[in-house]
């Protein structure tokens, strides 16, 4: 790796931090309870838009894991979700009407909030439809994991995105507020992923799953990335580059072992494919606020018209993290 690349990455990181600093003006406070944050608290950062229906279960799930404080950006919701969040005792909320796309899909806003509030905390960055599972998550709280990572001098924790879907039409079972979305979207693809190394950022680029199988079968190279590093012991020098897919400094992306061993990793169960999705896909298509000219949503809309069923004979039904570990989708590493 040449010094030139090292320098380029350094400039890039600084540029993104400056960008985040500039974008701070786009955020206006709805509820600021950050004074309640204690040293060592685990913080969750998220951006959301019109996800009111998902929020109650989302908050409950992460409270149960042991998240101490939620820092949320509301991107111009019209369903009252900003107010709902503002009423929660452990949530701080900012609102913005600015462009999601021009804040690089929320990354700039969150980089700013992480810069300001995340320093020296374990920081979890997830969307309202993403649910983190990690080794022993049914018996050990998130604090056990972060304590172990601290003791092992590990600063970032990988959790690949696992797309979950229902059996049958995705709009067959309507999602109820407060419900565990995994009750409906309980199936996933167990073994059709590809892993490529990104030489510049040093991260793995993971693709595959039902989105490649169904929406991007003709152009698999364009399928969305599934690699994610959602849990980081934050330092104000850090910056996410593209969603939580990769970050700088580069060493934080090295969440995989290259000498045959397995590092510990988890999974983000992605419950995007519920009945709410068809409406959302149509809306996002007109908003044009998503990655690569919302190409992803175009592909979805096209496919879902004809056959909105992602399930196949070899789909796997989700049971627990141990199942994911046996299937080789995540690993305990040397945590026992």
């Amino acid at each position, binding site marked *: 790796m040449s010094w030139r690349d090292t320098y380029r990455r350094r400039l890039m990181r600084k540029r993104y931090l400056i960008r985040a600093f500039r974008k701070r003006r786009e955020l206006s406070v709805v509820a600021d309870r950050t004074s309640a944050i204690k040293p060592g608290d685990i913080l969750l950062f998220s951006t959301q838009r019109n996800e009111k229906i998902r929020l109650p279960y989302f908050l409950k799930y992460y409270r149960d894991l042991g998240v101490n404080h939620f820092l949320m950006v509301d991107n111009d919701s019209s369903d009252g979700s900003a107010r709902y969040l503002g009423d929660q005792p452990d949530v701080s909320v900012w609102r913005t009407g600015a462009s999601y796309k021009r804040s690089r899909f929320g990354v700039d806003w969150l980089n700013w909030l992480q810069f300001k509030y995340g320093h020296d905390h374990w920081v979890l960055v997830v969307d309202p439809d993403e649910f983190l599972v990690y080794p022993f998550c049914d018996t050990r709280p998130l604090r056990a994991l972060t304590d172990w990572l601290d003791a092992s001098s590990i600063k970032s924790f990988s959790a690949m995105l696992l797309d979950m879907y229902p059996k049958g039409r995705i709009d067959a079972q309507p999602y109820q507020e407060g419900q565990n979305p995994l009750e409906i979207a309980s199936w996933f693809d167990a073994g059709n992923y590809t892993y490529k190394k990104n030489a510049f950022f040093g991260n793995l680029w993971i693709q595959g799953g039902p989105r490649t199988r169904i929406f991007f079968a003709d152009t698999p190279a364009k399928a969305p990335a599934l690699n994610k590093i959602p849990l980081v012991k934050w330092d104000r020098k850090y910056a996410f580059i593209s969603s939580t897919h990769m970050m700088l400094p580069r060493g934080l992306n090295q969440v995989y072992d290259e*000498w045959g061993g397995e590092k510990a990793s988890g999974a983000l169960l992605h419950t995007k494919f519920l009945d709410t999705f068809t409406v959302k896909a149509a809306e996002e298509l007109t908003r044009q606020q998503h990655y690569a000219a919302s190409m992803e949503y175009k592909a979805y809309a096209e496919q879902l018209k004809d056959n909105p069923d992602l399930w196949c004979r070899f789909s796997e039904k989700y049971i627990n993290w141990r199942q994911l570990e046996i299937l080789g989708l995540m690993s305990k590493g040397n945590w026992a």
Partner: protein
Amino acid sequence: MNSVGVIMLVHTALGRAEQVARHWAAGGCPVVIHVDRKVDRRTYNTFVKALSDLPDVRFSHRHACEWGTWGIVAASQAAAETLLGHYPDVRHVYLSSGSCLPLRPVAELKTYLDARPDTDFIESATTADVPWTVGGLDMERFTMRFPFSWKRHRPLFDAYVNLQRKLGFKRRIPNGITPHMGSQWWCLTRRTLTAILMDTDRPEYDEYFQKVWIPDESYFQTLARLHSKRIESRSLTLSKFDFQGKPHIFYDDHLQLLRRSDCFVARKIWPHADRLYEAFLTDADGRGKMAEPQPGKIDRIFAKAVERRTRGRPGLIMQSRKPNEGWENGVTAGRYSVFQGFADLFEDFNDWLVRATDTRVHGHLFAPERAEFADGQTVMSGALSDVASVRDYDPQAFLINLIWNTRGERQCWQFGPADKQPIGWFIAKDPNAQISVISGAWAVPLFRSGKDFAELRKEAAQLQKVEAEFLNSLRSPYTKARIRIWTMAEFIESPMEPLQTIIDEIGSKRITRLTEAPRMTDLKGFGQFLQNLKNQGMHPYLMGDFPIDQDPVPTNTLTRKPYLVR
């Protein structure tokens, strides 16, 4: 009687340490606590006050304890002196830490030690015999100086070690003691401990060990060898280390495992493991059980964790395991068989193979149009798609995934020069692949197609070229697959023998001797067909020599081995 005294070295989670100290005291053990000097004054005072209601809990002079340095030994010495001085009837001294948790009633530990009044429990082995040194320093710990902190100034630490290596620097080991190492958690008798502390040479030993690296793993371990009447070289404290040399941590879900281990004390416990603390600190009085500690089961679990972290699961590529080339520890997860030419030569080869073996038999997985999965399926295990563009996006990942997803069931598939070739080199290098080739058999479908001859000639030339390249890679010195190549002429002379060999190697449980042969395609006129190709200026050579006039006679019938007489 206070036969057992406990030393606790404490630096964090003081609340838990208090709980444990109360437990020991309630069991009738005097406790001396050493609190790291790095703990601030106020916290320390609160802690001391919290325990002030217990007369037999004392605090010793505080030293700063940094990992790998002398401070921990100094702390143990100070605490031991306090303990021995104040409690003359203590016979065994148990060294523990603030994150240790007693697993068995105190009375059981006392009974156990009372039965062994002269035994010192201290893990102690010579440097040559221990595999678990971190950083590659074993004997050098005792012959070099380590003025720099390993944790805070690693580059300086390493540089100074290298410098000493280069200069051939060696410290003298005093009085010719033999350095021993072992777990830092021991249980020594008053006799031995006093002898170590009162030794007239102690100033010299102390000065020497102050500059040894990680002296807490060697000071008492070495000196106990000088004074002890009887050493049991094991620790009564269950403490497991991972591949980086840091202790494994116990959580609530280890409860049953810890109970069954019959160990007296475990380390290290996660401070928030409420269930563990509750379960083990509120245990009933001693049941007088005399069971020996059995750490075996826990050993296995942690050994497996280390194995997973260092070697990983063969044939698995995932988000946290992406081995560099050569470090895969098995590129694929299991054995598989690749057949080239067999389906061309035999009409019902796949069906026959299904009957002859208990494997999954696919068609041409790398056919240009789609992956021909078994039974015409469009998806396979793991939701693997048959779409050509998805497969060809990363053909290696496709195959690695297929083999991983079907662990425990052998996969067989057809390959040929008409297929997508990039996977060829990958399977040639894979020791899990069994590749059997009947070279030139691609000519059979051409011969039977009855297509326009000019076109056939072009196609034949192309296929031959591709197959020749594949055969070259199979014959390369880097090839690791099990490879068998026959020319077609060779093969049809006696097809049953090679087939039997291949089936035997697959190791099917179903049958031992083939009773049925696959049906060979009618090859009448094939010799002439080859001659026609030659006449057109093409040179078909991969199939071997076929005489023009004498058509090969398919030996479809089984020749019974003559010596097999029942």
